[in-house]
């Protein structure tokens, strides 16, 4: 279907996949390119040009850009590596082995991503905080353990908390990919007497490399763009990252500098992306869902069964249950983030009491909450569906159109960018774009539709990466059989591609949902009072210093997120009985 021959463009148009490619490119142009252009444009006005020189060359450039860049790259790289290591390893344990309670582990492993990253930072503080800043110290310090600054603050805790937060990404993608690998590949390796490690390293790993790389890329982007962790754990030792610099520049009214930083971040990410693409597409496409009903092997762990399971649980508990509980507790604590001042249910169900938080009622009594929850869920679902469809299309084109490297390359990049465009910039771009009617389309500004569109754009990275690795698993033959049967692209998509990719796509979709449900920076710019969102409520409370109320709402968000993730996993099961049967 994709052989180079004269008239490449003509061929592209003739080939339905090619047409799909063009369509997808058009959509991405609207969703991603225009905001980018806007971003660039605003940095080309006089003040912007000044910003460029400030950032890159001026006497400030070192502390404004280069040092934070170094720190960000460090954090990003470590986060990516750590996430892939933990996430991949866990996925392997869950999908490929006979470890007990695999389903439980799988579930727990998806929770951290649903938690807000400040919850993990908070958890870290609760344990490791020392007296550098003052106030009350963490558990260890209370026990008289002298916690060195480098553990309590700076790169180590930042990276650690980010890994704890984002290894779920790698886990979901890797697990999805592993689930589709034909067990006989591993069995063939087992026959040679290779150790489990050797098999995992030389056979399993390379075969799922594309998925792992996707996971790593996401983790990296998240790592460099995350603000909460470096702000909470980095600032006290003046550990500045691009994200703190970027956020700072924007909030202190030096927007152009912020945008310049963002663009540079995009540049960095692009380079990394292309590098990693070379790794992936340099190899052949390792389709693993073949037309031959390949058997699925279960690796017997034998003696290492106990220890490995214990390890996995330790990891999950410390990254999901602990922070989760701390978050929950802090929504009951009388005093902000302090568990010594006693607890109360006031922030959940308390009637208005003027002495507390200016008579703010418990969140469950706040009529807005129901409304906000519904809107939030609705938005989350719509975006999840939309983004997943688009992402699948992108993934499909990228995988199946291997002929045209430039097209696929740029698609990959575009679908990856939104991560690195600051939410506030993206939001502004969408207002500017959809604030006025475009031809027949009325002005979408202030409508639910715009929220959805913006959401799709913002979460495209998840959807596209997931789609790409999921599609990559489907062997050509299986689809060609449908082609011969006369099934058009759409039909194939619905009946063959989506079902076969569903595991990976559902994983992606749940990521999207979670991300939207808790995202603030983008939505807050687009919402109107008519469309209340939970994330906006948390902002409302937080801005007034009602931390407990904010935490309470956050707990709701987490519940939604976890619920969605669980649901996604539930759906996977019945979805793919053939997999269960063959295992």
């Amino acid at each position, binding site marked *: 279907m994709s052989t180079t021959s004269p008239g490449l463009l003509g061929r592209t148009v003739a080939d339905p996949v090619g047409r799909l490619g063009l369509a997808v490119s058009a959509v991405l142009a609207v969703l991603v390119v225009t905001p980018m252009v806007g971003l660039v444009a605003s940095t080309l006005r006089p003040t912007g040009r000044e910003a460029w020189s*400030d950032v890159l060359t001026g006497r*400030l450039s070192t*502390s*404004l850009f280069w*040092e934070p860049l170094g720190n960000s790259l460090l954090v990003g790289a470590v986060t990516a590596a750590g996430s892939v290591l933990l996430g991949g390893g866990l996925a392997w344990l869950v999908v490929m082995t006979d470890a007990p309670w695999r389903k439980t582990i799988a579930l727990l492993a998806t929770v951290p991503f649903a938690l807000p990253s400040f919850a993990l930072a908070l958890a870290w503080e609760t344990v490791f905080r020392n007296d*550098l*800043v*003052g*106030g*009350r110290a963490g558990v260890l310090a209370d026990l008289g353990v002298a916690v060195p600054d480098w553990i309590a603050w700076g790169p180590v805790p930042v990276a650690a908390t980010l890994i704890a937060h984002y290894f779920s990404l790698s886990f979901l993608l890797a697990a999805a990919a592993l689930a589709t690998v034909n067990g006989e590949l591993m069995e063939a390796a087992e026959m040679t007497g290779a150790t489990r490690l050797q098999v995992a390293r030389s056979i399993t790993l390379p075969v799922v490399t594309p998925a792992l790389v996707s996971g790593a890329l996401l983790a990296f982007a998240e790592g460099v763009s995350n603000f909460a962790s470096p*702000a*909470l754990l980095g*600032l*006290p030792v*003046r550990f*500045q990252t691009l994200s*703190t*610099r970027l*956020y*700072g*520049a*924007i*909030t*202190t*009214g*030096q*927007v152009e500098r912020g945008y310049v930083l963002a663009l540079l971040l995009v540049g960095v990410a692009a380079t990394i992306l292309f590098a990693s693409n070379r790794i992936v597409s340099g190899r052949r496409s390792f389709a693993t869902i073949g037309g031959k009903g390949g058997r699925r092997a279960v690796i017997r762990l034998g003696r290492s069964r106990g220890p490995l399971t214990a390890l996995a649980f330790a990891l999950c508990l410390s990254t999901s249950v602990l922070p989760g509980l701390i978050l929950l507790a802090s929504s009951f604590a*009388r*005093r*902000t*983030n*302090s568990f010594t*001042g006693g607890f109360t249910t006031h922030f959940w169900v308390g009637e208005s009491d003027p*002495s*507390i938080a*200016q008579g703010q009622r418990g969140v469950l009594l706040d009529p807005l909450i129901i409304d906000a929850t519904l809107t939030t869920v609705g938005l989350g679902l719509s975006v999840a569906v939309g983004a997943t469809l688009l992402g699948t299309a992108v993934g499909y084109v990228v995988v199946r159109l291997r002929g045209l490297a430039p097209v696929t390359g740029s698609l990959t990049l575009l679908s990856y960018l939104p991560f690195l465009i600051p939410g*506030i910039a993206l*939001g*502004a*771009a969408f*207002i*500017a*774009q959809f*604030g*006025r009617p475009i031809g027949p389309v009325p*002005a979408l*500004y*202030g409508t639910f539709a715009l929220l959805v569109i913006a959401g799709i754009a913002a979460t495209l990275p998840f959807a596209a990466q997931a789609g790409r690795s999921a599609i990559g698993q489907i062997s050509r033959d299986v689809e060609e059989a449908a082609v011969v049967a006369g099934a058009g692209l759409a039909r194939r998509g619905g009946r063959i591609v989506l079902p076969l990719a569903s595991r990976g796509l559902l994983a992606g979709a749940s990521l999207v949902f979670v991300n939207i449900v808790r995202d603030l920076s983008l939505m*807050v*710019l687009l*919402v*109107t*009072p*008519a469309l209340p969102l939970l994330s906006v409520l948390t*902002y*409302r*409370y937080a*801005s*007034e*210093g009602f931390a407990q109320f904010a935490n309470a709402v956050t707990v709701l968000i987490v519940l939604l997120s976890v619920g969605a993730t669980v649901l996604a996993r539930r759906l996977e099961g019945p979805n793919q009985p053939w997999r269960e049967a063959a295992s």
Partner: protein
Amino acid sequence: GGGSPTGAGAGAPAAPDPLDSLSTEELLEQARAEGTVSVYSFTSRIAAVEAEFERTYPGIDVVATDISSTEQIARIKAEAAAGSPGADVAYLSDAPVVLDELLDEGLLRNYVPPRVADALPAEFREPLLASRLSTKTLMFNEEAHPDGPPVQNLWELTDPEWNGRVVMVDPQIRGDYLDLMTEIVLRSEEMGAAHEALRGVPVELDEGIESAGEQWIADLYANGVVLVGDTDSVNAAVGARGQQDPPVGFTTYSDRRDNSEENRALQAATEVAPAPGIAFPAMIGLSPDAANPAAARLLVDFLMGDDSETGGTWFEPFYVPGDYPTRDDVTPPAEALPLAELGTWTIDPGASAGVRRDVADLLLTLG
């Protein structure tokens, strides 16, 4: 051509609008006709205002969106670009940026309700209406220091004794703290005087440093000032009870009202030379092409409080100890020190806007 970035003529004072001179009652009728008014607010207390307003003026619906000042600025700019204004009224902080990027660009216009005009000092009428002042001031732990503030002079904070024991939010991620630093630079003579008063010698400036204020900042950073991400961290660090020698820190005076709730011992350091911190305005602006011009003005009028001693129920949400109404005919809450005794500098947004960037850059060089 409403809404183009320079809609109402950049910089130039907005053309006088007949509505500006109408009395509350006159506004009310027209407002009833309009029936609704939308507002962006940087504080969610707007919800309370909304309720009260709708009770006072039935039939006029307030649509309130609370989003931070930074986001209001971005949003208002974008809306202008798209020609679809989102709100009639903007209630926001970050004064210097607002003046610089919105008012001067004609994206906001000033309106001073005639009813309260006379009660307002000039600096709160022009260039943009200010409804109240909030603070970022030096506070200490009164449990650890029962007999008053541990420092009497800002320069003491640069002494080894306070090394690593001064806490504030990183001025590079929070506008109000940047304003604090800016004000200190603007007040360099006073800073210089305070230095001589404490040390008996004039400040000598390191190279690259141009004023006493800048020198103080440099010394403070060199003295290991601890930067955190949000005021609550500062409050916790400084105020938490049961500490041997707690740090001091710059934070919001009005947060003191949570002391009992949060089991803290926050107290403002008064009689600090030359000043313990700043008071800065929360401002109110009109959209130059507001869809509901009358209702908008009525809401502004409402936000300034009624004619009673305390601004009445209209102003109640903002009538908290530690915040200060700008109207001189409204007496601040008794539980807090009068602004004069607190001794903070009240910033001049216009002046700050000029040097703000340079200060930010200075901070950058300090890391």
